[in-house]
């Protein structure tokens, strides 16, 4: 069992955002450079290691809806703002849920807006692990324009998952927009298949959103449920 998973299991919780992203990084899935800040004194050191602007978010096994808890700050430009953001996030989190166990605050370099997609995994009682792909934002929420395949996937499955959604045209580029890096998406889907098979303790995965660019992509938020 992967040590990240073993630790989470012992503490009877799912993976923290930092842990999920760590795992993704091990599998070669691109995530923005991130650090976990565990106390206020670490802010200076850590912000000197990664480049601004930053996104900072609460990391707590007991807070799932981070925005509701006032636990998300974006566009942080310097060390001073980072300190203030840290204090505010922790303060609001404690107010939101007094009993919440707080692991710290994740800080990562803000990624420019790309085309939002979502890649996920869930387990079906009869088919076992299933991979999902869709365009993010309103496409997923409003139109449920998503595709599924049973894991393990073959290359052709990943390819079909992408081409089969209605929003595929958007990835190919409409109204003069450039074509997005479809090959990179395919790679993420295949890696999720592999990660799922090698870590059977994980029951659900949401990589949402993933920002896709003309070249490459970045997983902005990740959840893994044990």
């Amino acid at each position, binding site marked *: 069992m992967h040590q990240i998973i073993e630790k989470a299991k012992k503490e009877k919780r799912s993976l923290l955002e930092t842990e999920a992203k760590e795992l993704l990084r091990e599998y070669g899935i691109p995530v923005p450079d991130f650090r976990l800040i565990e106390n206020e004194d670490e802010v200076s050191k850590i912000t000197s290691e990664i480049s601004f602007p930053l996104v900072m978010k609460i990391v707590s096994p007991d807070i*799932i809806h981070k925005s509701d808890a006032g636990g998300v700050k974006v566009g942080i430009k310097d060390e001073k703002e980072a300190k203030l953001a840290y204090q505010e996030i922790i303060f609001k989190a404690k107010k939101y849920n007094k009993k919440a166990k707080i692991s710290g605050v994740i800080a990562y370099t803000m990624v420019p807006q790309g085309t939002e997609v*979502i890649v*996920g*995994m*869930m387990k*079906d*009682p*009869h*088919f*076992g692990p*299933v991979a*999902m792909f*869709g365009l993010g934002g309103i496409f*997923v929420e409003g139109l*449920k324009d*998503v*595709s*599924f*395949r*049973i894991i393990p996937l*073959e*290359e*052709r*499955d990943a390819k*079909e998952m992408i081409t*089969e959604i209605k929003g595929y045209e958007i990835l190919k580029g409409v109204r003069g927009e450039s074509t997005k890096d479809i090959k990179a998406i395919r790679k993420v889907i295949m890696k999720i298949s592999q990660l799922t098979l090698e870590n059977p303790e994980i029951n*659900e*995965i*949401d990589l*949402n959103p993933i920002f896709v660019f003309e070249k490459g992509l970045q997983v902005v938020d990740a*959840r893994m*449920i044990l």
Partner: protein
Amino acid sequence: MKSMENFFNPHSIAIFASMKEGKTGYEIVKNMVEGGFKGNIYPVSQSGGQIFGVNINKDFKNLEIDLAIIAIPGQFIPSLLEDLGSRGVKSAVIISAGFSEVGNIEEEKEIKKIAEKYKMRIIGPNCAGIMNTGCNLFASIEVRALLGQTAFITQSGALGGAVLMMAEELGFGFSKFVSYGNRCDVDEVDLIKYLEDDPQTKVITLYIEGLEEGRRFLTQAKKTVLKKPIIAIKAGKSKAGMRATSSHTGSLAGEDKIYDAAFKQAGILRVEGVEEMFDLCRGLIHYPKIKGNKIGVITNSGGPAVLTTDKLEELGLMVSEPSESLKNKLKKILPPHVSLGNPFDLLAYGGAENFAQVSKTISSEYDVIIAIFVPTASMDSVEIATALGKIKEEIKIPIFANFMAGRLVKKGIEELNRYGIPNYETGERCAKVIQKIILRTSKINNFNLCN
């Protein structure tokens, strides 16, 4: 696999059921005798006497039994199975109901246990029986299927019966029919595996309400589709995802979407319902593969051709224009005024000779031909059908027909059948069939490439 073989090609079959008129046993024996089963038929019942000229056995001590058909009340089934098992009977179909479908899970488990003990295979319980038209085996309460090349496997016995009745009306036959009910032992996967090598079966059709072992099914289906097409009707499309989940992915994954994905992944062709199933079977039996998506439409009438073309294009198929050299060839054989574009509208000149010539000429540039014909006072549908039938043997690409309509073209359609040209009442239905066959072809080509 001997036990599976016993289900479909038994030398002797014993029927355990009430033989009173109108009861299950009576109906089965009637089907077996009237259907002309060549092996031994042994009705077994305490009543004794005779039924349809066959003696009813009071016990089965001296009988050699390959297949037992059981329709006695549920509580007597375990002891009967013990008896049969200890005497070496390897295959049984349990028609009796009242098991897991009504919550009686214990008794069904007991049956399964006895079957395992004697290595006996069981179809059912709570099913409508099985048929193999190839050897006149009609061990079922349903109407006897006509001889054909499609195997039909159904979870619902009632729907199975209805499909057989509809098929009879259409003159559509089956190779095998299996109603597997609660599938306490033999399931879809075992049946698909058996049918994969059944020489009489060209197409496998399934009616599924739910799968227990989805992954096992997927693995088997992926192998089988390389040999023969599988068509599935999956009930329960409207059921929304009802699982407990905390992720976004989980909340979006309705049961039906997972089935849809699994079918696509396995190369199974999913159809909406029974009508589409028949349509597709009739196409696949003659044309299991279509190698490209360029469709040539030949017609003697504008309206139906436009509807067909619209549907073909909506489905992503190409009704492409002929090349200049092909146009020149057509010019030489056709009267003036006739359109040289696709659809090839022969207008009132559309006689048998023209249909045949144009089919032959365009076959070099297209992957499929759809011949649309609406009879006129001077033109007989049989002649057109014969001409198309003869040309079909000459050219290498599939020909589909859309003869319109009803009794005006009844004789013509019979003639098309003789030559193995599937006819559809509308071009739209024909287009859907072609699209699915092309889809299957590209899928299995893809599978083969990857293997």
